[in-house]
């Protein structure tokens, strides 16, 4: 047995590189510190008021609550939509394939903002004209419903693409082996293809899940009081813009980190090999 030689991977391949690193990054960091605290920008009179933002933390918590609520529902719907769409796109039936392809192409090529506003204002007008006015009803489309609808349809289209690529990566040999052992088409899907396909596509699916959280910030524009809304509200009330936005950004990052952690845990619990996103 040849003893394994462990190559010592050091950070720098030569002393010159270490000096270069220290000079470049250290210089940039020192410049930033000096610029903000001692240099010409310093007497811009910017007092750092982190404590004021801390006092308003309950707003941030409310915001996180709303964002998580939207996230949970959109996740559920878009996963379901994505799986069905992915199956539909690889189906043998022509009209199913056409329908799924149409869905994916339409909802991937329209900005989420347009979809959300359409769902909130446009759909309301349709409902008003078709149901409310003729029959005297009062069916309202609340903003959270519109947001979840738009987010689910939008993300579902992307997830459909991801699931489709996963299904297509299953070798044809598996299909043939399944039919030869007497499994029906539905059974093949359920027991052979889908479990493998879904596991394969966990990394890109995970990044789509993170995208739901980030895309939900747009909901602020249709009167949803999510994290983005409350970051701006804190800014209005305390006039501490930089601190409020930093808090909001950090919380968004925290949420994405939690989602990544949850997916990691899920993979562990299911006994799968943990795959990280590309």
């Amino acid at each position, binding site marked *: 047995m040849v003893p394994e030689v462990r190559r010592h991977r050091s*950070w*720098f*391949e030569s002393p010159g*590189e270490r000096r*270069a*690193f220290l000079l470049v*990054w250290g210089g940039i960091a020192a410049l930033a510190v000096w610029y903000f605290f001692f240099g010409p*920008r310093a007497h*811009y009179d*910017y007092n750092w008021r982190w404590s004021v933002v801390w006092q308003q933390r309950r707003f941030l918590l409310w915001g996180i609550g709303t964002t998580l609520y939207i996230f949970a529902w959109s996740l559920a719907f878009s996963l379901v939509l994505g799986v069905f769409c992915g199956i539909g796109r690889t189906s043998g039936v022509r009209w199913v394939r056409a329908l799924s392809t149409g869905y994916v*192409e*339409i909802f*991937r*090529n*329209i*900005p*989420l*903002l*347009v*979809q959300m*506003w*359409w769902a909130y*204002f*446009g759909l*309301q*007008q*349709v409902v*008003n*004209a078709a149901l409310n*006015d003729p029959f005297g009803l009062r069916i309202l489309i609340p903003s959270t419903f519109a947001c979840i609808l738009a987010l689910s349809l*939008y*993300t579902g*289209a*992307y997830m459909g*693409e*991801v699931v489709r*690529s996963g299904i297509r990566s299953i070798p044809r040999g598996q299909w043939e082996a399944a039919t030869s052992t007497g499994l029906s088409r539905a059974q093949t899907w359920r027991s052979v293809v889908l479990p493998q396909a879904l596991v394969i596509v966990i990394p*890109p699916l995970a990044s*789509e899940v*993170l*995208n739901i959280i*980030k*895309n*939900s*910030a*747009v909901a*602020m*524009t249709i009167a949803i009081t999510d994290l*983005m809304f409350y970051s*701006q509200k804190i800014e209005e009330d305390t006039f501490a*813009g*930089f601190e409020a*936005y930093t808090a*909001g*950004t950090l919380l*968004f*990052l925290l949420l*994405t*980190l939690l989602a990544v952690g949850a997916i990691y845990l899920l993979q562990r619990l299911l006994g799968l090999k943990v795959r990280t996103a*590309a």
Partner: protein
Amino acid sequence: MDTFWKWSVIPENAGFFLGGFRLTLTIFAIAWIGCWAFAVLFGAMRHSSRPWLRYPAAAVVEVIRGTPGLMFVVWVYFLSQPLIGYALSPFWAAVWALVIHQGAYGAEVVRAGLSSVDRGQLAAGYSTGLGYVGVMGWIVLPQALRNMAPAIVNRSVALFKNTSLAFVIGVIEFFRAGTIVNGRENASFAVFTFLAAVYFVCCFSLSRLGHHLGQRPGVIEDTTAV
């Protein structure tokens, strides 16, 4: 609620919509150049074998990718004066925000593209006597670009869609033109269906190009929903 469809609102305000669309195209064009410049820089840094380039670039890219685009637009606009001493106009704040935000996603595309070229090619290139520049210019870049092409197109489509985010800071681009007309005329269905149709036509044609370019082996996938 006289007529349900109110499609006449569209031709009545055609000039307004056209102005907004022109602005969207302008933002898209300028941001596209900046975005890929940023992406090439950070993508190359992330691909580098030197850890002291790779890790800081990775940190920057990951932080930017973890933030919502809307947040970025607002950040850049309001904090331009305190941070860089110059108050950006809404147009330029939107452009820079898009450059940085989409550039971070583009950096991933560039990195994947550079990695998609087989290591053996580099070795072969060096063995024929080409220097670093020669290997990069003649062997790596052409192949990397061919592999990246559909992902580049996909990113560009995403950039086009994200130009609509500029509306929160008052840029009267296409989406904003739509909301202004909508507010004035109360013709939500007509206006937003029209907006959706126009965006669809533009993005779909772009993505068809990407699909066409992607029909080759070795191509990298980039279908993220931001």
